[in-house]
């Protein structure tokens, strides 16, 4: 029997995994994936809350929007990464250090 808490725990795990991925991985694609994980954690929260706590549709609506926007965002992100790859022939994040003091 799943309760709210377990959902929250899962989402929290997702969130933290996402953060760790974003920090530890050097591959930009992977970092984008990390973002997705975080967003999904949030989406999961919304759905769970609206299922167990609030009993209104706001949560569902919100998560739908999240999915859509996440798609758009990753699309843009990937496009930029491709530009980056075309110029630098790498997607190693540490190569992106031209801009600094």
């Amino acid at each position: 029997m799943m309760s709210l808490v377990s959902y929250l725990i899962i989402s929290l795990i997702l969130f933290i995994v996402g953060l760790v991925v974003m920090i530890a991985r050097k591959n930009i694609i992977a970092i984008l994936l990390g973002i997705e994980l975080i967003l999904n954690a949030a989406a999961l929260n919304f759905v769970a809350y609206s299922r167990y706590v609030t009993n209104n549709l706001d949560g569902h609506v919100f998560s739908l929007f999240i999915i859509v926007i996440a798609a758009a965002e990753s699309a843009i992100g990937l496009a930029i990464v491709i530009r980056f790859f075309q110029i630098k022939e790498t997607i190693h994040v540490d190569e992106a250090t031209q801009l600094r003091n």
Partner: protein
Amino acid sequence: MEYTVGNIAPIFLSPVIAFVINAFFGRKLPRQGDWLATLSIFISFIFSARIFGDFVFGTFATDFFIHKTFTWFDLSHGANIWKVDMGIYIDNMAAIMLLMVSGVAFLIHLFSTWYMDHDEKHGRFFVFLPLFTSAMLGLVLSDNLFSLFIFWEIMGFCSYSLIGIYNKKEAAGDASLKAFMTTRVGDVFLLLGMVAIWMVIGSVAYVDIYAAIAEGKFAGQTVIGISLATFAGLCIFLGGMGKSAQFPLHVWLPDAMMGPTPGSALIHAATMVAAGVYLSLRMYPLMVLGDLTWFIAVIGAITAFGAATIALVQTDIKAVLAFSTISQLGYMMIGVGVGSYNAAFMHLITHAIFKACLFLSAGSVIHSVHEQEMPKLGGLRKYLPYTHFAMMCCTLAIAGIPFFSGFVSKDRILGDALYFGFIAGQNPLLAIVPILGFAGAGLTAFYMFRMMFLTFYGENRMGHHDSHGDEHAHGDHHHGHDIHHEHLDARSNVPLLILSVFTLGVWFAGSLTGQGIVKVFGEKTEWFKILVEAPKVERFVKHPREAFGSTDSRVKAELPKAKYDHQSGYAGPNPDDHKIHSAHVVGAWMSIVIAFLGVFIAFLMYIKKSIKPLASMFPGYTETLKNKYYFDNLYVDVIIKKGLLGLNRFLSWFDMGIFDRFAVDGWAAVNRVLFKASKWFDNVVVDAIGVDGTGVAVNLFNLVLRIVQSGKIQFYFIMLIVVLASYIWTVNI
């Protein structure tokens, strides 16, 4: 007789007007306006003589004085009254002083018109000379320390200008600077003392100070630990020391002869140096109250003797006179110190007259032979008879030979000193005062006659050398070097003769010798001794203050005519008349003997040549004397050059180099440094060390460094999360 603005102001104002006119239009006037200056002084002489006559021959009363005031400026607002009064205060002393100053100054002016003729600085000289005189007259007239200080400083400025008048010479510049600064040291103390008195008793008018002393307002007042009377008295006396060239502030006076000789005459005789003594006399009650008299006496004694010793080895005729001035001023200070008020003042007057005469004579010698080094002179007696006569009279006077003024005054001082040192039964150490005093008297007689002999007697040594025109104080080279015979001339040597007349003691003392009674002036016998006495402070309590223009409320008729009784005038620490009298008698004989001894030795040494000159006797000591006891070196080389300038250099270096650089610009620097540091850390440390390596440890190390490295997106993440965590932590507590 009325004392109004109309008949007092001219004394002070006419020279001022002369100064203003000469300063602006001097070049356009015929003879560059020297006649104007002389005339102006003559006017003030006339008015002074009028006052003198009224005081000395009219009202013949000890406690007669004129005191009139007007408000200079007024800061009062509402209930808060605060104003500065100026005014005139004339008593017997001031009256005599006025006559002396204006008279001597007039003769000096007259002489200068001849002396400074064809001198390039003729015009400038006659700009400052009247201002100088007017300042001194104003100082004598002024009724309070504040205006006294003003004129005091103006005199300082005038002396600065006169000494440095030959501005082409570096030495002139140094001398003027030295003169001004040395006196300034005293001046600031005088200012301080004046402020102290002003702020405690609310005024610095003499009468108020006397009244305050009488009422005991000074009692219990202290300044930085010392009693107010002592503090103020000391400060004021320091001022006097500066102006009157007392040890250790005497160094400026010898250099003051850089200026033209008449200028020196004015400075040394009538005006500047007299001011210090005059001040000390005016503030005498304060000195007594502050228990400073012994100090004054000691300083005076040291000065009198020390200067005399230095004078022994001087070869420059003016230098000898300069040191003799210092020495004589020392005697005056002894007079103040030992409480022989009357004699001290008399010595001031007599000295003023004969010293003026001496300088003018020296001037006429220099002007006619263009030489002031005594070894190069000699035998001038036959060329300059009148000068010789005048100078001889004065020399006799200063040497303290009977029948001459110097004897009268100096002998009285020494007499009191003798009493003060031995009989008055204070601290036995104070015996040095009379000892040094008498020794100095002997030396004085010696070196003065040495000067006379070297200059006017023996064979003429002029021929033996070529011109030393460039050494002349007044540097005019256009005269030939042939010595032309002097003949009587209203401007060149008549002033000397006039002055030399007044070197006779009989004018000042009731008798020729100054002892005993011979009724020269009939009832007015011993007028000087009677009329001049230390102010009796009780007399000044609550005396009416008179506005200018108002008639004099003190009706002279009521004043008791002063009588001469044998005992009066000796204001010793205790009026133990018998002892005092005997001390005077002893002193008189001693000084006569000593004086003649000095003259005799000089005679043997320089006429008979039977004794070798001093220099050959004690060469080492002579060296010391030639260097004036190394005081100049001490002040200039050690204290100023090494100490003061060193400190200043350090401070200014500190100010710009350290304080400004680090404390002020530091702020900007700090930011820049921070910025640089982080940049350096990124570029050097991280990129250099953060090379990828294998192995877990290395990787971890890399990770850490990578995290820190800016410009890397993941460091931003880390930062974000870290800070987020810290925020959350903070908001939850």
